[in-house]
């Protein structure tokens, strides 16, 4: 800090007020040591590194607006008669929860705006987390030492989904009530304990009089409390690990190149909060979300077509819509596979996402720290997995909205469901194969570029009449950037028979690992990057170009 030198010459009494306060705080909180480590912390610049910030800020916006909404919302299922200003509901019976949501929307000035900001921010929060996770996945930012932070982020995504679901259910409107009913059906499908969980959750039979109050405490206290803790932990780890960066001149695994927190990132990140908040406020000004007055109060015997959950539950919805209605009755019991299998599958998919970093590190056996990000093309198998997963996810999103695709594209809903049933298995495989090929193609192109230079677009005629395109050699910066990634050798099991002819036992896991390793890094699964020798041979031979 530039003031330390002047500090010494100046008497304490004349120090600026800010400094005095900081000194006071340092004496009690030790803020100077904290600031020493963090005030000039370096953050690299890349737009994709700001996706996490989109999530953080939308989370803060959700908390701010959510607190405001709690001031007016009544989490009660007592039935009241509506006397508010929205004419098409006047005189209707509805729960207090629905009534107070109408009150927020029509009588509280700015209440509708805050409600809309809250809901839009929630959708953007989850979309942001999805994209942020994909960024981390495709660039390999989850590798050591960041596996734990991947888990934190994963938990935030899962908890975010459930916080969203419980919040969406609070107004007790016809759409969300249908969603809660679906949830009850899903819980009932759980073998042995399903009925008990359902009765405990709803305080008896569905819908009962309790679920809004219970969802309320889950939505505003339990889940966001856990999430807040996870967010803080996530951020501490980001600071502690220092941010990853893409390979480039001067950027190595042992440094982080960028701009300091004070002042540049203070301004950029701080400013970005306002940008995100501002953008969401404008969206809430012009686009209506969840118009519960048009939807009406919940009644278990009423329903509307197009009953969908918010987008982040679309995958679960797709699973459940595409599933055939399998049900097994035996010994006086019913196994509701048609609902339970999607439920289990949902959990399995989530668990697979959580565990992926550990699976990959087991396959590579790599125990080193990784701070340089992968370009997705350089890890074709991982990239192909990710792409296949996204494709699968989108197939299920289509399945979750099959009725709307049917009406808007004049298709048969049955045909769409059958398409989803087939695509569920086929599309991920095709995507996997295609993505991998694209990655390998891009790797080859990179290799070409390194060895033969960049196509300059200049056509030259040689003395004997042949036309050639002049290739410009790459600069050293580009050469370094394109060759900085390291490539793994596939794990070998080694000979199963030793030199004495005695058979060595190879465990099944070792075999599996060798197989996976080959799938990741085997001959056909990555293009060997150009070597210095290759480069020298070619450049010396092609000197005349």
């Amino acid at each position: 800090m530039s003031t330390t030198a002047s500090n010494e010459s100046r008497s304490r009494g004349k120090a600026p007020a800010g400094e005095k306060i900081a000194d006071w705080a340092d004496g009690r909180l030790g803020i100077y040591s904290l600031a020493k480590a963090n005030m000039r912390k370096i953050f690299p610049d890349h737009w994709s590194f700001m996706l996490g910030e989109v999530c953080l800020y939308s989370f803060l916006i959700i908390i701010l607006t959510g607190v405001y909404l709690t001031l007016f919302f009544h989490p009660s299922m007592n039935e009241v008669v509506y006397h508010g200003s929205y004419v098409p509901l006047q005189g209707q019976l509805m729960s207090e929860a629905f009534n107070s949501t109408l009150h927020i929307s029509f009588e509280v000035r700015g209440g509708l705006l805050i409600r809309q900001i809250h809901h839009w921010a929630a959708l953007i929060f989850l979309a942001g987390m999805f994209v942020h996770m994909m960024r981390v996945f495709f660039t390999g930012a989850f590798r050591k030492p960041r596996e734990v932070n991947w888990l934190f982020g994963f938990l935030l995504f899962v908890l975010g989904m459930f916080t969203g679901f419980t919040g969406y259910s609070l107004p007790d409107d016809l759409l969300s009530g249908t969603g809660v009913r679906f949830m009850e059906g899903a819980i009932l499908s759980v073998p042995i304990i399903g009925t008990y969980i359902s009765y405990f959750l709803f305080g008896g039979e569905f819908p009962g009089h309790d679920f809004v109050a219970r969802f309320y405490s889950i939505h505003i206290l339990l889940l966001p409390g856990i999430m807040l803790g996870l967010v803080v932990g996530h951020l501490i780890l980001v600071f502690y690990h220092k941010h990853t960066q893409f390979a480039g001149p001067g950027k190595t695994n042992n440094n982080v190149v960028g701009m300091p927190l004070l002042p540049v990132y203070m301004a950029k990140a701080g400013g970005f909060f306002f940008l995100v908040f501002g953008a969401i406020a404008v969206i809430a000004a012009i686009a209506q979300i969840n118009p519960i007055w048009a939807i009406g109060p919940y009644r278990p015997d009423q329903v509307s077509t197009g009953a969908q959950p918010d987008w982040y539950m679309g995958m679960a919805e797709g699973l459940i819509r595409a599933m055939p209605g399998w049900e097994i009755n035996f010994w006086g019991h019913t196994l509701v596979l048609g609902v339970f299998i999607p439920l289990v599958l949902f959990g399995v998919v989530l668990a697979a996402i959580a565990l992926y970093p550990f699976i990959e590190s087991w396959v590579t056996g790599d125990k080193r720290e990784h701070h340089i990000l992968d370009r997705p093309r350089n890890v074709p198998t991982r990239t192909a997995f990710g792409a296949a997963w996204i494709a699968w996810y989108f197939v299920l999103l289509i399945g979750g909205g099959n009725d709307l695709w049917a009406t808007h594209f004049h298709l048969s809903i049955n045909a769409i469901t059958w398409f989803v049933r087939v695509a569920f298995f086929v599309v991920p495989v095709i995507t996997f194969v295609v993505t991998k090929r694209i990655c390998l193609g891009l790797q080859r192109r990179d290799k070409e570029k390194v060895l033969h230079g960049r196509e300059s677009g200049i056509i030259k005629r040689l003395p004997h009449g042949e036309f050639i395109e002049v290739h410009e050699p790459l600069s050293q910066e580009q050469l370094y950037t394109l060759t900085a990634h390291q490539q793994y050798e596939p794990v070998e099991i080694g000979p199963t028979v030793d030199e004495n002819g005695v058979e060595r036992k190879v465990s099944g896991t070792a075999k599996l690992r060798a197989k996976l390793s080959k799938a990741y890094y085997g001959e056909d699964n990555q293009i060997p990057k150009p070597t210095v020798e290759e480069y020298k041979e070619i450049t010396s031979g092609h000197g005349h170009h």
Partner: protein
Amino acid sequence: MKKLSARRRHPLAAVVVLLLALAATGGLYTAFAPASKAKADDSAQSLTIEEGKKLYAVGCASCHGTGGQGTTDGPSLVGVGAAAVDFQVGTGRMPAQQPGAQIPRKKVIYSQAEIDQLAAYIASLGAGPVVPTKNQYSPEGADIAKGGELFRTNCAQCHNFTGKGGALTHGKFAPDLDGVQPKHIYEAMQTGPQNMPSFPDTTMSEKNKKDIIAYLNAVNSDKTDNPGGLELGGLGPVSEGLFAWIFGLGALIAVAVWVAARTAKAKKS
């Protein structure tokens, strides 16, 4: 019986069944229809029927038969009543262009006078539901909130919360009710066109229908307020999710690109 079940799959078989159903519904109406009133202006009435018959012979007879008895291409119209004709022809569904999962609403090619003549002719073949009068369907004096409740019980399952329409099986659909005349909504409820069930006065009173029409008029018309802004089709979370991804996250990523981009460097001189 075998022959019948084979024909069940015919694209127009559904229409046959519909009109059988209409005929049955119409049968109930004969009990209420005031027969004596028709005699008063006998001559004017028969002239209208005559005109309708001519129109029918040109536009409808090829499918529905020369006497409205129905053919393999179109169901019998005996007893479907004037309301069914007014709805089907008045919304452009009839004459049908081509068979399909469902015959859609399209441009109306007959004038209201011609439709009335056609309706009179069909009504003369056998009694059925009559065209409702203006004070039956006009939303004035109706209970909008009650209409909303009725709509959510009887209609929303196919037509969505505010009548934006929805999907049925095998490519059939419940149409968007935006811009549909109150009279036609009334007639649809009364006659149950195509796969829509009917809601006769015996189970859904005239007052009920009026309330429903008033509710639709309040929530699904050009003048309907959407306090929050863009309605996004009124389709719920799917369109909201798409909007959040494309315009919400899309805008924020565009902003992020700007924040993280390098500032232009001074040109080297």
